[in-house]
Protein backbone atom coordinates (compact mmCIF):
# COMPACT_ATOMS: atom_id res chain seq x y z
CA UNK A 1 0.00 0.00 0.00
CA UNK A 2 2.19 2.71 -1.29
CA UNK A 3 -0.04 5.66 -0.47
CA UNK A 4 0.01 4.79 3.14
CA UNK A 5 3.74 4.74 3.45
CA UNK A 6 3.85 8.14 5.05
CA UNK A 7 1.50 7.01 7.78
CA UNK A 8 2.76 6.24 11.19
CA UNK A 9 0.90 4.83 14.15
CA UNK A 10 0.93 8.16 15.81
CA UNK A 11 -0.40 9.90 12.74
CA UNK A 12 -3.28 7.47 12.54
CA UNK A 13 -4.25 8.46 16.04
CA UNK A 14 -3.74 12.11 15.24
CA UNK A 15 -5.74 12.05 12.07
CA UNK A 16 -8.63 10.07 13.37
CA UNK A 17 -8.94 11.83 16.64
CA UNK A 18 -8.60 15.21 15.00
CA UNK A 19 -11.92 14.47 13.31
CA UNK A 20 -13.48 14.68 16.74
CA UNK A 21 -12.37 18.26 17.28
CA UNK A 22 -14.92 20.85 18.19
CA UNK A 23 -17.57 21.02 15.47
CA UNK A 24 -16.96 23.72 12.95
CA UNK A 25 -19.45 26.08 11.49
CA UNK A 26 -19.77 23.83 8.47
CA UNK A 27 -20.76 20.93 10.67
CA UNK A 28 -23.41 22.98 12.37
CA UNK A 29 -24.60 24.19 9.01
CA UNK A 30 -25.27 20.59 8.14
CA UNK A 31 -26.49 19.48 11.52
CA UNK A 32 -29.07 22.16 12.24
CA UNK A 33 -31.02 21.50 9.04
CA UNK A 34 -31.14 17.81 9.88
CA UNK A 35 -32.70 18.71 13.21
CA UNK A 36 -35.23 20.91 11.48
CA UNK A 37 -36.20 18.19 9.04
CA UNK A 38 -36.37 15.59 11.77
CA UNK A 39 -38.68 17.96 13.57
CA UNK A 40 -40.79 18.33 10.46
CA UNK A 41 -40.93 14.57 10.03
CA UNK A 42 -42.01 14.24 13.62
CA UNK A 43 -44.70 16.83 13.06
CA UNK A 44 -45.95 14.88 10.05
CA UNK A 45 -46.05 11.71 12.09
CA UNK A 46 -47.93 13.31 14.94
CA UNK A 47 -50.36 14.78 12.48
CA UNK A 48 -50.83 11.34 10.99
CA UNK A 49 -51.36 9.65 14.34
CA UNK A 50 -53.85 12.28 15.34
CA UNK A 51 -55.84 12.47 12.11
CA UNK A 52 -55.50 8.94 10.85
CA UNK A 53 -53.49 7.17 8.24
CA UNK A 54 -55.73 8.74 5.63
CA UNK A 55 -53.50 11.79 5.56
CA UNK A 56 -51.02 9.63 3.71
CA UNK A 57 -51.72 8.89 0.08
CA UNK A 58 -52.75 5.32 0.75
CA UNK A 59 -55.91 4.06 -0.83
CA UNK A 60 -57.56 0.84 -1.78
CA UNK A 61 -55.87 -1.31 -3.06
CA UNK A 62 -52.48 0.24 -2.38
CA UNK A 63 -52.19 -0.36 1.32
CA UNK A 64 -48.43 -0.07 1.44
CA UNK A 65 -46.56 2.76 -0.15
CA UNK A 66 -43.76 5.13 0.57
CA UNK A 67 -43.31 4.06 4.20
CA UNK A 68 -42.60 0.48 3.34
CA UNK A 69 -40.50 1.64 0.41
CA UNK A 70 -38.47 3.66 2.88
CA UNK A 71 -38.29 0.72 5.22
CA UNK A 72 -36.90 -1.61 2.59
CA UNK A 73 -34.64 1.12 1.29
CA UNK A 74 -33.07 1.76 4.67
CA UNK A 75 -32.76 -1.91 5.53
CA UNK A 76 -31.04 -2.30 2.19
CA UNK A 77 -28.68 0.56 2.93
CA UNK A 78 -27.84 -1.11 6.19
CA UNK A 79 -26.69 -4.22 4.49
CA UNK A 80 -23.52 -3.18 2.86
CA UNK A 81 -22.22 -1.96 6.20
CA UNK A 82 -22.37 -5.44 7.55
CA UNK A 83 -21.14 -6.81 4.30
CA UNK A 84 -18.05 -4.64 4.40
CA UNK A 85 -17.35 -5.16 8.05
CA UNK A 86 -18.27 -8.80 8.47
CA UNK A 87 -18.21 -10.64 5.21
CA UNK A 88 -15.12 -8.94 3.91
CA UNK A 89 -13.56 -9.45 7.31
CA UNK A 90 -14.10 -13.16 6.98
CA UNK A 91 -12.60 -13.01 3.50
CA UNK A 92 -9.71 -10.91 4.83
CA UNK A 93 -10.24 -8.29 2.17
CA UNK A 94 -7.95 -5.52 3.29
CA UNK A 95 -9.65 -2.80 1.37
CA UNK A 96 -12.41 -2.82 3.96
CA UNK A 97 -10.20 -1.59 6.80
CA UNK A 98 -10.44 2.11 6.19
CA UNK A 99 -14.12 2.29 5.38
CA UNK A 100 -15.70 -0.34 7.51
CA UNK A 101 -16.31 1.87 10.49
CA UNK A 102 -18.21 4.38 8.42
CA UNK A 103 -20.07 1.55 6.77
CA UNK A 104 -20.94 0.01 10.10
CA UNK A 105 -22.11 3.30 11.47
CA UNK A 106 -24.21 3.62 8.38
CA UNK A 107 -25.63 0.17 9.09
CA UNK A 108 -26.63 0.96 12.61
CA UNK A 109 -28.19 4.28 11.76
CA UNK A 110 -29.92 2.90 8.70
CA UNK A 111 -31.46 0.09 10.74
CA UNK A 112 -32.40 2.64 13.34
CA UNK A 113 -34.15 4.60 10.61
CA UNK A 114 -35.67 1.56 8.96
CA UNK A 115 -37.02 0.33 12.26
CA UNK A 116 -39.18 3.42 12.59
CA UNK A 117 -41.17 2.79 9.46
CA UNK A 118 -43.03 -0.36 10.44
CA UNK A 119 -44.36 1.65 13.36
CA UNK A 120 -45.02 4.79 11.36
CA UNK A 121 -47.04 2.87 8.82
CA UNK A 122 -49.32 1.18 11.35
CA UNK A 123 -52.95 2.14 11.46
CA UNK A 124 -52.81 2.15 15.23
CA UNK A 125 -49.16 2.83 16.02
CA UNK A 126 -49.91 3.15 19.72
CA UNK A 127 -50.50 -0.60 19.73
CA UNK A 128 -47.21 -1.47 18.05
CA UNK A 129 -46.07 -3.50 21.03
CA UNK A 130 -48.73 -6.07 20.23
CA UNK A 131 -46.32 -7.31 17.60
CA UNK A 132 -43.96 -8.49 20.28
CA UNK A 133 -44.62 -11.75 22.06
CA UNK A 134 -45.02 -10.78 25.66
CA UNK A 135 -47.13 -12.46 28.31
CA UNK A 136 -50.42 -10.63 28.83
CA UNK A 137 -53.69 -11.10 30.64
CA UNK A 138 -55.45 -11.83 27.34
CA UNK A 139 -53.36 -14.99 27.03
CA UNK A 140 -52.78 -14.01 23.44
CA UNK A 141 -49.56 -14.55 21.58
CA UNK A 142 -48.46 -13.47 18.18
CA UNK A 143 -48.65 -15.22 14.85
CA UNK A 144 -45.25 -16.67 14.15
CA UNK A 145 -46.44 -17.61 10.70
CA UNK A 146 -46.65 -14.00 9.65
CA UNK A 147 -43.68 -12.65 7.69
CA UNK A 148 -44.20 -9.40 9.56
CA UNK A 149 -43.34 -11.17 12.75
CA UNK A 150 -40.27 -12.58 11.11
CA UNK A 151 -39.46 -8.98 10.33
CA UNK A 152 -39.86 -8.00 13.94
CA UNK A 153 -37.41 -10.69 14.96
CA UNK A 154 -35.02 -10.21 12.07
CA UNK A 155 -34.81 -6.45 12.28
CA UNK A 156 -34.53 -6.31 16.03
CA UNK A 157 -31.89 -9.03 16.00
CA UNK A 158 -30.12 -7.21 13.25
CA UNK A 159 -30.20 -3.94 15.10
CA UNK A 160 -28.91 -5.56 18.27
CA UNK A 161 -26.15 -7.55 16.61
CA UNK A 162 -24.98 -4.82 14.29
CA UNK A 163 -24.96 -2.28 17.10
CA UNK A 164 -22.93 -4.66 19.27
CA UNK A 165 -20.61 -5.42 16.42
CA UNK A 166 -20.20 -1.72 15.79
CA UNK A 167 -19.50 -1.09 19.42
CA UNK A 168 -17.16 -3.98 20.02
CA UNK A 169 -15.08 -3.07 17.03
CA UNK A 170 -14.76 0.38 18.48
CA UNK A 171 -13.64 -0.45 22.02
CA UNK A 172 -9.87 -0.22 21.40
CA UNK A 173 -10.35 2.97 19.44
CA UNK A 174 -12.45 4.51 22.14
CA UNK A 175 -9.66 3.64 24.54
CA UNK A 176 -7.28 5.49 22.27
CA UNK A 177 -9.53 8.52 22.34
CA UNK A 178 -9.88 8.25 26.07
CA UNK A 179 -6.14 8.36 26.32
CA UNK A 180 -6.04 11.52 24.27
CA UNK A 181 -8.83 13.73 25.44
CA UNK A 182 -8.36 15.93 28.41
CA UNK A 183 -11.67 17.69 29.06
CA UNK A 184 -13.29 15.98 31.99
CA UNK A 185 -16.80 15.22 30.72
CA UNK A 186 -15.57 13.71 27.50
CA UNK A 187 -12.92 11.78 29.34
CA UNK A 188 -15.53 10.26 31.62
CA UNK A 189 -17.78 9.31 28.77
CA UNK A 190 -15.04 7.73 26.75
CA UNK A 191 -13.70 5.99 29.84
CA UNK A 192 -17.02 4.37 30.44
CA UNK A 193 -17.47 3.47 26.80
CA UNK A 194 -13.99 1.97 26.54
CA UNK A 195 -14.87 -0.46 29.33
CA UNK A 196 -11.38 0.00 30.69
CA UNK A 197 -9.67 -1.29 27.62
CA UNK A 198 -5.91 -1.46 27.95
CA UNK A 199 -4.78 -3.44 24.99
CA UNK A 200 -3.24 -6.30 26.88
CA UNK A 201 -2.55 -9.51 25.08
CA UNK A 202 -5.21 -11.23 27.19
CA UNK A 203 -7.79 -8.74 26.07
CA UNK A 204 -6.70 -8.96 22.49
CA UNK A 205 -6.91 -12.73 22.57
CA UNK A 206 -10.57 -12.89 23.56
CA UNK A 207 -11.38 -9.79 21.65
CA UNK A 208 -10.13 -11.22 18.35
CA UNK A 209 -12.02 -14.41 18.96
CA UNK A 210 -15.25 -12.66 19.86
CA UNK A 211 -14.92 -10.32 16.93
CA UNK A 212 -14.50 -13.27 14.61
CA UNK A 213 -17.64 -14.88 15.98
CA UNK A 214 -19.56 -11.68 15.64
CA UNK A 215 -18.47 -11.49 12.05
CA UNK A 216 -19.47 -15.09 11.59
CA UNK A 217 -22.91 -14.39 13.03
CA UNK A 218 -23.41 -11.14 11.23
CA UNK A 219 -22.84 -12.74 7.85
CA UNK A 220 -25.76 -15.19 7.82
CA UNK A 221 -27.79 -12.65 9.74
CA UNK A 222 -27.41 -10.00 7.12
CA UNK A 223 -28.39 -12.47 4.44
CA UNK A 224 -31.37 -13.61 6.45
CA UNK A 225 -32.59 -10.14 7.25
CA UNK A 226 -33.00 -9.03 3.72
CA UNK A 227 -34.33 -12.41 2.75
CA UNK A 228 -36.96 -11.97 5.44
CA UNK A 229 -37.72 -8.50 4.20
CA UNK A 230 -38.13 -9.92 0.72
CA UNK A 231 -40.43 -12.59 2.11
CA UNK A 232 -42.78 -9.89 3.30
CA UNK A 233 -43.56 -9.74 -0.34
CA UNK A 234 -42.64 -13.16 -1.67
CA UNK A 235 -44.79 -14.98 0.89
CA UNK A 236 -47.92 -13.30 -0.40
CA UNK A 237 -49.76 -14.33 -3.51
CA UNK A 238 -49.81 -11.01 -5.25
CA UNK A 239 -48.58 -11.02 -8.84
CA UNK A 240 -45.26 -9.22 -8.81
CA UNK A 241 -44.57 -10.21 -5.22
CA UNK A 242 -45.02 -13.92 -5.31
CA UNK A 243 -41.71 -15.05 -6.74
CA UNK A 244 -38.95 -17.32 -5.51
CA UNK A 245 -36.04 -15.18 -6.61
CA UNK A 246 -36.90 -12.40 -4.22
CA UNK A 247 -34.47 -13.38 -1.46
CA UNK A 248 -31.25 -13.35 -3.48
CA UNK A 249 -32.58 -10.50 -5.57
CA UNK A 250 -33.22 -8.39 -2.51
CA UNK A 251 -29.92 -9.27 -0.89
CA UNK A 252 -28.02 -8.33 -4.01
CA UNK A 253 -30.06 -5.17 -4.32
CA UNK A 254 -29.40 -4.33 -0.70
CA UNK A 255 -25.66 -4.70 -1.10
CA UNK A 256 -25.84 -2.73 -4.29
CA UNK A 257 -27.69 0.14 -2.70
CA UNK A 258 -25.56 -0.03 0.43
CA UNK A 259 -22.35 0.27 -1.54
CA UNK A 260 -23.85 3.20 -3.33
CA UNK A 261 -24.61 4.85 -0.03
CA UNK A 262 -21.13 4.09 1.34
CA UNK A 263 -19.59 5.85 -1.62
CA UNK A 264 -22.03 8.72 -1.33
CA UNK A 265 -21.06 9.14 2.31
CA UNK A 266 -17.34 8.51 2.19
CA UNK A 267 -16.47 10.71 -0.76
CA UNK A 268 -17.35 13.95 1.01
CA UNK A 269 -15.93 12.76 4.32
CA UNK A 270 -12.70 11.79 2.66
CA UNK A 271 -12.49 15.22 1.13
CA UNK A 272 -13.49 17.23 4.17
CA UNK A 273 -11.33 15.38 6.67
CA UNK A 274 -8.47 14.83 4.26
CA UNK A 275 -8.56 11.09 4.63
CA UNK A 276 -7.06 10.43 1.21
CA UNK A 277 -4.30 8.46 2.87
CA UNK A 278 -6.80 6.19 4.52
CA UNK A 279 -9.62 5.78 2.04
CA UNK A 280 -7.66 5.11 -1.06
CA UNK A 281 -8.53 4.72 -4.67
CA UNK A 282 -7.92 1.01 -4.21
CA UNK A 283 -10.74 0.95 -1.73
CA UNK A 284 -13.07 2.58 -4.20
CA UNK A 285 -11.92 0.30 -6.94
CA UNK A 286 -12.83 -2.67 -4.81
CA UNK A 287 -16.26 -1.31 -4.03
CA UNK A 288 -16.91 -0.40 -7.64
CA UNK A 289 -16.17 -3.97 -8.64
CA UNK A 290 -18.74 -5.16 -6.14
CA UNK A 291 -21.18 -2.65 -7.56
CA UNK A 292 -20.69 -4.08 -11.03
CA UNK A 293 -21.35 -7.56 -9.70
CA UNK A 294 -24.49 -6.66 -7.75
CA UNK A 295 -25.79 -4.41 -10.50
CA UNK A 296 -25.47 -7.40 -12.79
CA UNK A 297 -27.45 -9.58 -10.41
CA UNK A 298 -30.13 -6.95 -10.03
CA UNK A 299 -30.34 -6.47 -13.79
CA UNK A 300 -30.63 -10.20 -14.25
CA UNK A 301 -33.44 -10.29 -11.72
CA UNK A 302 -35.33 -7.59 -13.61
CA UNK A 303 -35.06 -9.59 -16.79
CA UNK A 304 -35.93 -12.92 -15.27
CA UNK A 305 -39.03 -11.49 -13.63
CA UNK A 306 -40.33 -10.60 -17.03
CA UNK A 307 -39.43 -13.95 -18.43
CA UNK A 308 -41.10 -15.84 -15.63
CA UNK A 309 -44.21 -13.69 -15.88
CA UNK A 310 -44.46 -14.48 -19.53
CA UNK A 311 -43.57 -18.12 -19.09
CA UNK A 312 -46.10 -18.62 -16.30
CA UNK A 313 -48.93 -18.07 -18.74
CA UNK A 314 -50.84 -16.36 -15.97
CA UNK A 315 -52.66 -13.27 -17.20
CA UNK A 316 -52.32 -11.69 -13.78
CA UNK A 317 -48.54 -12.19 -13.70
CA UNK A 318 -47.93 -11.05 -17.21
CA UNK A 319 -50.43 -8.23 -16.78
CA UNK A 320 -48.45 -7.00 -13.80
CA UNK A 321 -45.12 -6.85 -15.60
CA UNK A 322 -46.55 -5.47 -18.78
CA UNK A 323 -48.10 -2.80 -16.63
CA UNK A 324 -44.82 -1.99 -14.94
CA UNK A 325 -43.10 -1.26 -18.19
CA UNK A 326 -45.99 0.48 -19.91
CA UNK A 327 -48.54 1.63 -17.35
CA UNK A 328 -49.01 4.86 -15.44
CA UNK A 329 -45.84 4.25 -13.48
CA UNK A 330 -43.68 3.33 -16.50
CA UNK A 331 -41.48 6.36 -15.89
CA UNK A 332 -40.59 5.05 -12.45
CA UNK A 333 -39.85 1.65 -13.87
CA UNK A 334 -37.48 3.01 -16.45
CA UNK A 335 -35.80 5.31 -13.95
CA UNK A 336 -35.07 2.18 -11.98
CA UNK A 337 -33.67 0.29 -14.96
CA UNK A 338 -31.52 3.17 -16.10
CA UNK A 339 -30.15 3.98 -12.67
CA UNK A 340 -29.49 0.44 -11.55
CA UNK A 341 -28.46 -1.33 -14.72
CA UNK A 342 -27.28 1.16 -17.30
CA UNK A 343 -25.57 3.86 -15.28
CA UNK A 344 -23.22 1.45 -13.45
CA UNK A 345 -22.07 -0.05 -16.74
CA UNK A 346 -19.14 2.36 -17.30
CA UNK A 347 -17.63 1.01 -14.10
CA UNK A 348 -16.31 -1.87 -16.15
CA UNK A 349 -13.50 0.51 -17.06
CA UNK A 350 -10.77 0.81 -14.50
CA UNK A 351 -10.14 4.47 -15.18
CA UNK A 352 -13.75 5.25 -14.32
CA UNK A 353 -13.70 3.13 -11.23
CA UNK A 354 -10.81 5.22 -9.99
CA UNK A 355 -12.43 8.53 -10.86
CA UNK A 356 -13.93 9.67 -7.60
CA UNK A 357 -16.21 12.28 -9.11
CA UNK A 358 -17.85 9.90 -11.56
CA UNK A 359 -18.12 7.28 -8.89
CA UNK A 360 -19.86 9.73 -6.60
CA UNK A 361 -22.37 10.66 -9.28
CA UNK A 362 -23.01 7.03 -10.13
CA UNK A 363 -23.54 6.28 -6.46
CA UNK A 364 -26.21 8.94 -6.18
CA UNK A 365 -28.03 7.50 -9.16
CA UNK A 366 -27.85 4.09 -7.54
CA UNK A 367 -29.47 5.46 -4.42
CA UNK A 368 -32.27 6.98 -6.47
CA UNK A 369 -32.66 3.89 -8.62
CA UNK A 370 -32.85 1.56 -5.66
CA UNK A 371 -35.47 3.68 -3.93
CA UNK A 372 -37.58 3.46 -7.04
CA UNK A 373 -36.95 -0.26 -7.31
CA UNK A 374 -38.62 -0.74 -3.94
CA UNK A 375 -41.37 1.67 -4.84
CA UNK A 376 -42.02 -0.20 -8.06
CA UNK A 377 -42.12 -3.58 -6.41
CA UNK A 378 -44.44 -2.43 -3.66
CA UNK A 379 -46.77 0.04 -5.26
CA UNK A 380 -47.02 -1.26 -8.78
CA UNK A 381 -47.75 -4.80 -7.70
CA UNK A 382 -50.45 -3.56 -5.38
CA UNK A 383 -52.03 -1.23 -7.83
CA UNK A 384 -52.49 -3.96 -10.39
CA UNK A 385 -53.55 -7.11 -8.59
CA UNK A 386 -55.71 -10.03 -9.58
CA UNK A 387 -59.02 -8.27 -9.77
CA UNK A 388 -59.22 -5.48 -12.35
CA UNK A 389 -62.19 -4.01 -10.53
CA UNK A 390 -59.86 -3.17 -7.68
CA UNK A 391 -57.07 -1.50 -9.56
CA UNK A 392 -55.97 1.89 -8.42
CA UNK A 393 -53.34 4.56 -8.57
CA UNK A 394 -51.44 5.87 -5.59
CA UNK A 395 -49.82 9.21 -5.10
CA UNK A 396 -47.83 9.91 -1.97
CA UNK A 397 -49.05 12.83 0.08
CA UNK A 398 -46.98 15.59 1.61
CA UNK A 399 -47.11 13.75 4.91
CA UNK A 400 -45.39 10.72 3.47
CA UNK A 401 -42.81 12.82 1.70
CA UNK A 402 -42.28 14.83 4.87
CA UNK A 403 -41.65 11.70 6.87
CA UNK A 404 -39.36 10.36 4.14
CA UNK A 405 -37.32 13.54 4.16
CA UNK A 406 -37.40 13.40 7.92
CA UNK A 407 -36.01 9.89 7.80
CA UNK A 408 -33.06 11.02 5.70
CA UNK A 409 -32.49 13.85 8.12
CA UNK A 410 -32.78 11.42 11.02
CA UNK A 411 -30.12 9.22 9.44
CA UNK A 412 -27.78 12.08 8.71
CA UNK A 413 -28.32 13.53 12.14
CA UNK A 414 -27.00 10.34 13.68
CA UNK A 415 -24.27 10.16 11.15
CA UNK A 416 -23.10 13.68 11.82
CA UNK A 417 -23.10 13.05 15.54
CA UNK A 418 -21.16 9.88 14.91
CA UNK A 419 -18.54 11.73 12.90
CA UNK A 420 -17.93 14.09 15.78
CA UNK A 421 -18.03 11.65 18.63
CA UNK A 422 -16.69 8.31 17.54
CA UNK A 423 -13.69 7.29 15.49
CA UNK A 424 -14.77 7.12 11.88
CA UNK A 425 -11.78 5.08 10.86
CA UNK A 426 -10.68 2.08 12.82
CA UNK A 427 -7.48 3.11 14.53
CA UNK A 428 -6.41 -0.34 15.64
CA UNK A 429 -7.15 -2.02 12.37
CA UNK A 430 -5.46 0.68 10.31
CA UNK A 431 -2.36 -0.09 12.29
CA UNK A 432 -2.55 -3.68 11.26
CA UNK A 433 -2.14 -2.49 7.70
CA UNK A 434 0.95 -0.45 8.46
CA UNK A 435 4.40 -2.01 8.55
CA UNK A 436 5.12 -3.24 12.02
CA UNK A 437 7.82 -1.18 13.78
CA UNK A 438 10.89 -3.30 14.15
CA UNK A 439 14.34 -2.44 15.25
CA UNK A 440 15.78 -4.87 12.83
CA UNK A 441 14.33 -5.60 9.48
CA UNK A 442 12.68 -8.97 9.57
CA UNK A 443 14.32 -11.55 7.48
Amino acid at each position, binding site marked *: MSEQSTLTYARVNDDVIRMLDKPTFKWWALFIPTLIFVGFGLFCFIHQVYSGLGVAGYRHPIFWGVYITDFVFWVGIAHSGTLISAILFLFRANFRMSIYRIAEGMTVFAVLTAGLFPIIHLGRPWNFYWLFPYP*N*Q*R*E*LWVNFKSPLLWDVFAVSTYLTVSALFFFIGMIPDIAAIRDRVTEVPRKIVYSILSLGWKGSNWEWLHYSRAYLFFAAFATPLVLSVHSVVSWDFAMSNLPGWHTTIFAPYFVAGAIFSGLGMVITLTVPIRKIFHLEDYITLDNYDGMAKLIILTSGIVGYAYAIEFFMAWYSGSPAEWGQFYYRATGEYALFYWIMVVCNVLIPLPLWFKSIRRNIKILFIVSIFINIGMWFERFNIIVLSLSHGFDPAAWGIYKPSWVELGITVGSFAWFFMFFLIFLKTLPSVSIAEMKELLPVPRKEAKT
Partner: protein
Amino acid sequence: MRKGIKILSVPVLAIVILLGFYFYSAESSDQGPVQPIRFSHKIHAGEDQLPCQFCHSFVDVSPNPGIPSVKKCMGCHQHIVGRDVDYDFDGTTINIRNEISKVREYWANKEPIPWTKVNSTPGYLRFTHKRHIKRGFECAQCHGDVAAMDQVYSADRLNMGFCITCHTDNAKDHEELTHLKDCLTCHY
Protein backbone atom coordinates in the same frame (compact mmCIF):
# COMPACT_ATOMS: atom_id res chain seq x y z
CA MET B 1 -20.92 9.96 43.48
CA ARG B 2 -21.32 7.68 40.55
CA LYS B 3 -21.48 4.81 42.91
CA GLY B 4 -24.25 6.55 44.82
CA ILE B 5 -26.37 6.85 41.72
CA LYS B 6 -25.78 3.24 40.96
CA ILE B 7 -26.86 2.14 44.38
CA LEU B 8 -29.90 4.34 44.29
CA SER B 9 -30.98 3.24 40.87
CA VAL B 10 -31.60 -0.33 41.93
CA PRO B 11 -34.35 0.33 44.47
CA VAL B 12 -35.85 3.09 42.36
CA LEU B 13 -36.16 0.74 39.43
CA ALA B 14 -37.54 -1.99 41.65
CA ILE B 15 -40.16 0.36 43.07
CA VAL B 16 -41.19 1.51 39.62
CA ILE B 17 -41.56 -2.07 38.45
CA LEU B 18 -43.47 -3.10 41.56
CA LEU B 19 -45.77 -0.11 41.34
CA GLY B 20 -46.40 -0.83 37.68
CA PHE B 21 -47.19 -4.41 38.48
CA TYR B 22 -49.45 -3.37 41.29
CA PHE B 23 -51.46 -1.03 39.11
CA TYR B 24 -51.50 -3.63 36.40
CA SER B 25 -52.76 -6.47 38.51
CA ALA B 26 -54.47 -4.77 41.42
CA GLU B 27 -58.07 -5.69 41.94
CA SER B 28 -60.22 -2.79 40.98
CA SER B 29 -61.16 -0.47 43.73
CA ASP B 30 -63.98 -1.49 46.02
CA GLN B 31 -65.26 2.05 45.91
CA GLY B 32 -68.21 2.26 43.60
CA PRO B 33 -69.34 5.54 42.06
CA VAL B 34 -71.62 7.92 43.88
CA GLN B 35 -75.09 7.29 42.53
CA PRO B 36 -77.99 9.74 42.33
CA ILE B 37 -79.72 7.67 44.96
CA ARG B 38 -77.81 5.82 47.64
CA PHE B 39 -79.33 2.55 46.68
CA SER B 40 -78.05 -0.25 48.87
CA HIS B 41 -77.82 -3.67 47.30
CA LYS B 42 -76.91 -4.90 50.75
CA ILE B 43 -80.38 -4.01 52.01
CA HIS B 44 -82.27 -5.22 48.93
CA ALA B 45 -80.35 -8.32 47.96
CA GLY B 46 -78.85 -9.05 51.35
CA GLU B 47 -81.28 -8.26 54.12
CA ASP B 48 -84.46 -8.42 52.07
CA GLN B 49 -83.17 -11.37 50.07
CA LEU B 50 -84.63 -10.20 46.81
CA PRO B 51 -83.38 -12.44 44.02
CA CYS B 52 -81.31 -10.58 41.41
CA GLN B 53 -83.81 -11.36 38.69
CA PHE B 54 -86.57 -9.65 40.57
CA CYS B 55 -85.21 -6.37 39.34
CA HIS B 56 -82.83 -7.39 36.58
CA SER B 57 -85.53 -9.39 34.94
CA PHE B 58 -84.24 -9.73 31.38
CA VAL B 59 -81.04 -11.42 32.35
CA ASP B 60 -82.06 -14.81 31.01
CA VAL B 61 -83.74 -13.62 27.82
CA SER B 62 -81.57 -10.78 26.64
CA PRO B 63 -77.94 -9.86 26.33
CA ASN B 64 -78.76 -7.06 28.76
CA PRO B 65 -79.91 -7.84 32.28
CA GLY B 66 -82.15 -4.82 32.32
CA ILE B 67 -82.08 -2.00 34.79
CA PRO B 68 -85.39 -1.76 36.67
CA SER B 69 -87.66 1.03 35.57
CA VAL B 70 -88.77 3.66 38.02
CA LYS B 71 -92.18 2.05 37.85
CA LYS B 72 -90.66 -1.13 39.14
CA CYS B 73 -89.10 0.71 42.06
CA MET B 74 -92.43 2.27 42.79
CA GLY B 75 -94.05 -1.13 42.72
CA CYS B 76 -92.67 -1.62 46.21
CA HIS B 77 -91.92 1.90 47.30
CA GLN B 78 -95.46 3.01 46.73
CA HIS B 79 -95.99 1.27 50.03
CA ILE B 80 -92.57 1.18 51.56
CA VAL B 81 -91.54 4.66 52.53
CA GLY B 82 -88.64 3.46 54.61
CA ARG B 83 -87.66 3.92 58.19
CA ASP B 84 -86.67 7.37 59.21
CA VAL B 85 -83.32 6.18 60.49
CA ASP B 86 -79.70 6.84 59.74
CA TYR B 87 -77.86 4.20 57.89
CA ASP B 88 -74.18 3.73 57.43
CA PHE B 89 -73.81 3.50 53.69
CA ASP B 90 -70.21 2.56 53.05
CA GLY B 91 -69.11 5.04 55.66
CA THR B 92 -71.51 7.79 54.63
CA THR B 93 -74.46 8.37 56.85
CA ILE B 94 -77.72 8.55 55.01
CA ASN B 95 -81.32 8.65 55.98
CA ILE B 96 -83.23 5.79 54.45
CA ARG B 97 -86.51 7.59 54.15
CA ASN B 98 -84.73 10.51 52.53
CA GLU B 99 -83.25 8.31 49.88
CA ILE B 100 -86.52 6.55 49.15
CA SER B 101 -88.26 9.87 48.83
CA LYS B 102 -85.86 10.64 45.99
CA VAL B 103 -87.26 7.70 44.05
CA ARG B 104 -90.74 8.99 44.59
CA GLU B 105 -89.61 12.36 43.38
CA TYR B 106 -88.29 10.88 40.16
CA TRP B 107 -91.54 9.03 39.72
CA ALA B 108 -93.56 12.15 40.38
CA ASN B 109 -91.56 14.04 37.76
CA LYS B 110 -91.69 11.09 35.39
CA GLU B 111 -87.95 11.25 35.05
CA PRO B 112 -85.59 8.34 34.75
CA ILE B 113 -82.89 7.93 37.34
CA PRO B 114 -79.48 8.62 35.81
CA TRP B 115 -77.51 5.77 37.35
CA THR B 116 -73.81 5.63 36.76
CA LYS B 117 -72.64 2.45 35.13
CA VAL B 118 -70.50 0.27 37.36
CA ASN B 119 -69.72 -2.79 35.29
CA SER B 120 -69.09 -1.87 31.72
CA THR B 121 -67.72 -3.73 28.78
CA PRO B 122 -65.96 -2.16 25.83
CA GLY B 123 -67.86 -1.47 22.61
CA TYR B 124 -66.10 -4.18 20.66
CA LEU B 125 -67.31 -6.89 23.00
CA ARG B 126 -70.58 -8.74 22.40
CA PHE B 127 -71.33 -10.12 25.82
CA THR B 128 -74.66 -11.79 26.42
CA HIS B 129 -76.00 -12.36 29.92
CA LYS B 130 -78.61 -14.77 28.59
CA ARG B 131 -76.19 -17.51 27.59
CA HIS B 132 -74.29 -17.31 30.83
CA ILE B 133 -77.38 -17.45 33.00
CA LYS B 134 -78.86 -20.26 30.93
CA ARG B 135 -75.65 -22.15 31.41
CA GLY B 136 -76.31 -21.89 35.12
CA PHE B 137 -73.75 -19.40 36.28
CA GLU B 138 -74.47 -17.43 39.39
CA CYS B 139 -74.46 -13.67 39.11
CA ALA B 140 -71.88 -13.55 41.87
CA GLN B 141 -69.40 -15.41 39.74
CA CYS B 142 -68.63 -12.21 37.90
CA HIS B 143 -70.27 -9.50 39.95
CA GLY B 144 -69.02 -10.61 43.33
CA ASP B 145 -71.10 -10.79 46.46
CA VAL B 146 -73.40 -7.95 45.62
CA ALA B 147 -75.60 -8.86 48.54
CA ALA B 148 -72.86 -7.66 50.82
CA MET B 149 -72.20 -4.37 49.07
CA ASP B 150 -73.99 -1.17 49.85
CA GLN B 151 -72.73 0.55 46.77
CA VAL B 152 -72.01 -2.00 44.06
CA TYR B 153 -68.50 -1.92 42.73
CA SER B 154 -66.74 -3.89 40.09
CA ALA B 155 -65.67 -6.98 41.98
CA ASP B 156 -63.41 -8.29 39.27
CA ARG B 157 -61.46 -6.74 36.52
CA LEU B 158 -63.80 -7.77 33.77
CA ASN B 159 -61.04 -8.00 31.23
CA MET B 160 -60.32 -10.61 28.62
CA GLY B 161 -58.11 -12.64 30.88
CA PHE B 162 -61.01 -13.00 33.28
CA CYS B 163 -63.30 -14.21 30.51
CA ILE B 164 -60.80 -16.58 29.00
CA THR B 165 -59.84 -18.22 32.26
CA CYS B 166 -63.46 -18.99 32.95
CA HIS B 167 -64.12 -20.13 29.40
CA THR B 168 -61.16 -22.46 29.53
CA ASP B 169 -62.11 -23.89 32.90
CA ASN B 170 -65.72 -24.51 32.02
CA ALA B 171 -65.49 -26.05 28.57
CA LYS B 172 -67.06 -29.49 28.52
CA ASP B 173 -65.00 -30.93 25.72
CA HIS B 174 -62.57 -29.98 23.07
CA GLU B 175 -65.24 -28.84 20.64
CA GLU B 176 -66.77 -26.53 23.15
CA LEU B 177 -63.40 -25.20 24.15
CA THR B 178 -62.69 -24.37 20.53
CA HIS B 179 -65.96 -22.53 20.36
CA LEU B 180 -65.49 -20.76 23.66
CA LYS B 181 -62.05 -19.59 22.67
CA ASP B 182 -63.12 -18.61 19.19
CA CYS B 183 -62.57 -14.87 18.80
CA LEU B 184 -65.84 -14.44 16.91
CA THR B 185 -67.79 -15.70 19.88
CA CYS B 186 -67.32 -12.35 21.55
CA HIS B 187 -65.81 -9.95 19.00
CA TYR B 188 -67.57 -8.85 15.85
